[in-house]
């Protein structure tokens, strides 16, 4: 019986990195927005969208 621990570890690593990245970018966007810094806010939200789209592209392609 072989359990693919490396694959499970990949799931954990990917989930951790991607989630923290998206969440952090999103909160930074909200911080920028609440102190009226439009530019950084847009950049943060765009970063979020980019990470999500990249993730989906990995699955589809």
């Amino acid at each position, binding site marked *: 019986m072989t359990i693919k621990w490396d694959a*499970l570890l990949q*799931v*954990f690593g*990917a989930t951790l990195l*991607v*989630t*923290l990245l998206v*969440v952090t970018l*999103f909160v930074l966007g909200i911080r920028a927005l609440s102190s009226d810094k439009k530019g950084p806010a847009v950049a943060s939200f765009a970063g979020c969208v980019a990470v999500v789209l990249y993730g989906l592209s990995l*699955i589809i392609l």
Partner: protein
Amino acid sequence: MDPALVVIIVVVTALIFDFTNGFHDTANAMATSIATGALKPRTAVALSAVLNLVGAFLSVEVAKTISGGIVDDAQITPAVIFGGLVGAIMWNLVTWYVGLPSSSSHALFGGLIGAAWVASGVDSIHFAKVVDKVLVPAVVAPLVAGVVAALATIVVYRLKKSTDPRVSHTGFKIGQVASASLVSLAHGTNDAQKTMGIITLALITSGSLAPGSAPPFWVIISAGLAIALGTYLGGWRITHTLGRGLTTIEPAQGFAAQTSTATAILASSHLGFALSTTHVASGGIMGSGLGRDRRGVNWGTMGKMAAGWLFTLPAAGIVGAIAGKWASSGTTGVIGVAVIGGAVAIGIWILSRREPIKPEHIVDEVAAQAELHKVAA
């Protein structure tokens, strides 16, 4: 009975299972958004239904896990698969009736394994594959989602401290809708696949498809539509438990929970792990509850849910075993299983009508909760 007819019965039963899977799991994606008022219940289920359909087309890895490995396709017949499906549907309906967010996936595996074991012998099950692709991910995935959700919640609450509350409240509601949408999409990539896998397996065992085939296009689209329809009709009973019962949820927290849930499911789907989206979503909600406030988690409800999870595989397995044994005995068996299964399903539906839980109830509860917060503040 004509083998082609049995295959048709299996396909129809599999789509019925897929439909129950959809309305059983509406809650996973949408419970937190409905609970915080970010989305109206009807909008939430419509959005979730469309995204489930889209998700069904994104990947076939999980379908391949099911059609090509858990059971030996040379040893089982479509009648055995039919028995397994009946076991899974029965368990899904019972847990839906009591409002327990149990795993549709485990009900399916339990039913299939039980039916194959009794009707075709223990050799027909590939236990190594079951452990590697189903059991281990079943334990690991909710933990992963929980741990990550807890960390994400801590990060969110740290960083949002100095923000304007009105901006952040609106912002997180939008973030929550976006992340709930991703969970629905992820759900389509994992759960719709399971029905595709089962139908493909039935086609392989009847000789219509070569072993190792990927699901044909009509299978993908019909499975996607069945789960979308089930999702749209909605499982308000379970949304009730998941949205309120585990821990109180704020938009920022729902956002953190769902982002980790969606990522964990998508990453697993990609590697062909057939995990329970229900368990992952519950793990995410629990984790974010712990990350925000350790005292805010309802361990009683959590304990009841975990007990239900442990029962799912064996309970569906026993029903699947009986139904599979009987169905594989011949035409009378198949008809008998179909009639009894149908009668039980109608019985549960009639019971559920006596005290229905509708979307309006959940909205009322959210409003009542908001009132309490106002009084406290």
